[in-house]
């Protein structure tokens, strides 16, 4: 796992109708620097995202928040 010193990119994809969260996260990842990580906030666990991240060479870890939303931390593998 890469340990980065950069400030993580926070992407708030809550309040969007499916599949818009998937779209905005993948579009943003295309511009994510190699050494950076992204924290994507979503209303639901992004199940359709995981396989696509794996294909694009990312690792991800999702945590549920107290308010019921989810934060997925994404890094280059």
């Amino acid at each position, binding site marked *: 796992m890469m340990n980065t010193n950069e400030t993580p*990119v926070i992407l708030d994809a809550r309040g969007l109708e499916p599949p818009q969260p998937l779209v*905005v996260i*993948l*579009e943003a990842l295309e*511009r994510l620097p190699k050494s950076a990580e992204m924290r994507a906030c979503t209303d639901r666990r992004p*199940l359709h995202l995981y396989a696509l*991240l794996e294909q694009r060479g990312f690792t991800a870890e999702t*945590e*549920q928040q107290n308010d019921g939303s989810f934060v997925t931390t994404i890094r280059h593998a």
Partner: protein
Amino acid sequence: MSAKASVGTDVRAPSVALPLRFILTGIGALLTGCAWLVLRPDLLATYHYNQYVIAATHLFVLGWICSAIMGSMYQLVPVALEARLHSEKLARWHFALHVTGFVGMVVMFQNWNLKYVGSFGSILALGVGLFIYNLVRTLARIPRWNVVAFGIASSLAWLALAIFAGLYLAAAKCWSFSPFEPLAQMHAHAHLGGLGFFVMLIVAVGYKLVPMFALSEVQSARRAGWSIVLLNAGLAGVFATILFSSQWKIVFGCVVVVGLAFYWLEILAILRARKRRNLDWGLKYFLTAVALLVPVSALGAVLAWPQLPLTPLTAQMENVYGFLAFIGVVTFAILGMLYKVVPFLVWYASYSKAIGRGKVPSLAGLYSPTLQATGYWLFISGLLLTSVATALAHESCVRAGCVVLLASVIVFAVNIGKVLIHLVRPRIEPLVLKPTLQGVA
């Protein structure tokens, strides 16, 4: 925090081919069924206890409704409940058994060969057994139980009973061993499937889909939970009292209606709290189906009234009750649900790999809202005309109503065809790159 999931872990959506093959089979059966009603309007204009009505009903119920619902469940349950489908291989076997079973059953019902109905019914039942086993194993993996999971589990239990009751009916007809009155058995079986599996799923899935697409949340988990509990309790009583031809069925029918009233109240609360003001046509279809539960429930309560005489009018009203339940409520709800499920499946299969690397169409860009609106109003018109004509036992008007319904279904199929074109001819354009990502959104 808890509930972590990493890439490569157990939580993923199933492949798109699996639900699509069920759904497309279902749409084929729906078109065939509507065309059948156009050719044979007497199926609705005369009393429903004959081989042709039973054959057509099973084409709609097994070929259309079960195919579409089961395919959608293979897609929705893992996503809605955050658990990977136990086995896609079992689901593929289920598809083969399901198609063989329902096609054989419909043909054999029409020929009134009940031994073969039992044989094909057993094949179908084996497929349903695989389906239930697969989803039960999937439910066993979910991280936490909620009202949606409770509703889905309930619907699976009622489905198992409905299938068992159907096989019992076929066997009882072959060997004449049943102590129950034949029509009562058939009505009890129909309520297990219609109310227990279909309506229960509409209720459960509604608690997930309506908040998801209206951008809202369940407002009272307690109220939602009570709707499922009362539906289960009411249906258990309705089933027993219909089977034993008891006068108490009105009481349990009212319990079902109270459960549905809790559901309507919760859906209204969810809609009032929504962030998205304009509802799309898919959601309008689904919510109209939910609203149609009101006249169906009222009609059911009237027909359950103690000592209600069987007259030509009440007999026809039984036809209207079944028609409105299966075609009005369940079919309309499924059409709405499919306007969400199919475009997403196709969009994901065709475009997900290109997101961020090319310009891909939006989900709404895959289908025509004009066709959606046309199909909606045709369906409502056809439903009303056919219902009134059925009540009056007027064959020509039943045919006219079914022509309008068939036109609506053709419009739906054309719109779904527009979506499916993207599977073979994806439209990906070069991307115009934006400046580098800055950070907080």
